[in-house]
């Protein structure tokens, strides 16, 4: 937002040839280039399930995202969680944990709101760890392998 306002000022000066010829002015443009965000994900594996069964995997034993970013930089985290892995294979009851060190035992619970959402956070260490657990529920599901993506998108605020 700060950069865009600056551009508007410059454009106003440029579109007035008279002003450009007779006057001079200056504005200060400032930008901060932050460390690129790096994310690696590991799968949430339910393993083998029956054709009709509910099976839960706790976050500490579930999927994980490891994130490296600029320390103390506020970011927004957008997530998308699947509600189904296929016909008669539902997934829900998502639980997410967050920590700035690789320790799910001392992690805090992330308040998830539905299958997708956004929350803001920051990390003093420049590291973020998210653990994800859920429950898969099969209901007369056909034998086979099922999967669906979980996506996390981080944006510097």
């Amino acid at each position, binding site marked *: 937002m700060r*950069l865009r306002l600056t*551009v508007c000022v*410059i454009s106003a000066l440029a579109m007035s040839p008279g002003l450009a010829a007779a006057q001079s002015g200056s504005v200060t443009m400032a930008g901060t280039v932050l460390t690129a965000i790096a*994310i690696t994900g590991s799968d949430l594996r339910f393993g083998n399930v029956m054709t009709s069964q509910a099976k839960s995997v706790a976050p500490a034993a579930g999927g994980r995202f490891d994130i490296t970013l600029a320390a103390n930089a506020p970011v927004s985290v957008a997530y998308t969680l699947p509600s189904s892995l296929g016909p008669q294979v539902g997934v829900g009851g998502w639980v997410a944990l967050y920590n700035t060190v690789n320790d799910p035992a001392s992690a805090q619970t992330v308040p998830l709101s539905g299958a997708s959402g956004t929350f803001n956070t920051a990390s003093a260490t420049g590291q973020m760890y998210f653990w994800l657990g859920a429950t*898969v529920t099969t209901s007369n599901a056909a034998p086979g392998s099922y*999967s669906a993506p979980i996506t996390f998108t*981080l944006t510097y605020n």
Partner: protein
Amino acid sequence: MILPGLRTRTVLLIAAALACPGGVEAQTGGTAFTKATVLPAIATIGSALDFGTTTPTAVKTIAATAGGTFRVTGTPGVLVDVSFTFPTTLGHPLVAVGSWTGAQNSSPSAATSTPFSPSTSPQSFPLNASNGRLYLWIGGTLITSAAPAGTYSAPIVLTVVYN
């Protein structure tokens, strides 16, 4: 010589470079997958743990390998979680039952089976790699305390799910 047009273009290019690409580079996404494998249904067949006849006040124990039997059939070579629900009486408060014992084997031989402590908590056992079978034997102790004559029974419930 002043070239205002050129100067203006240069400024705008710098401004645009700072304003636009930064927002794109500052966003990063990561993907992991949620995975599950649905396996064919598990079948179980059971035969009763029979204490036979006893007196109104007695303690009678049946060893697991001589007790009730469950045969489990599922996907060969896969681990299953086994748990039990046991009765505390055979339907009368003076006919108590408990002290459960167990044995398990992937072949139907009780003689070569391995003891285990049957529990309401899941325990993992492998199904036979060839035929997908698992055999479980359950024993227990019957305690009668001035029990009235009669025939008594109660169910033992076995629950098996894929690990």
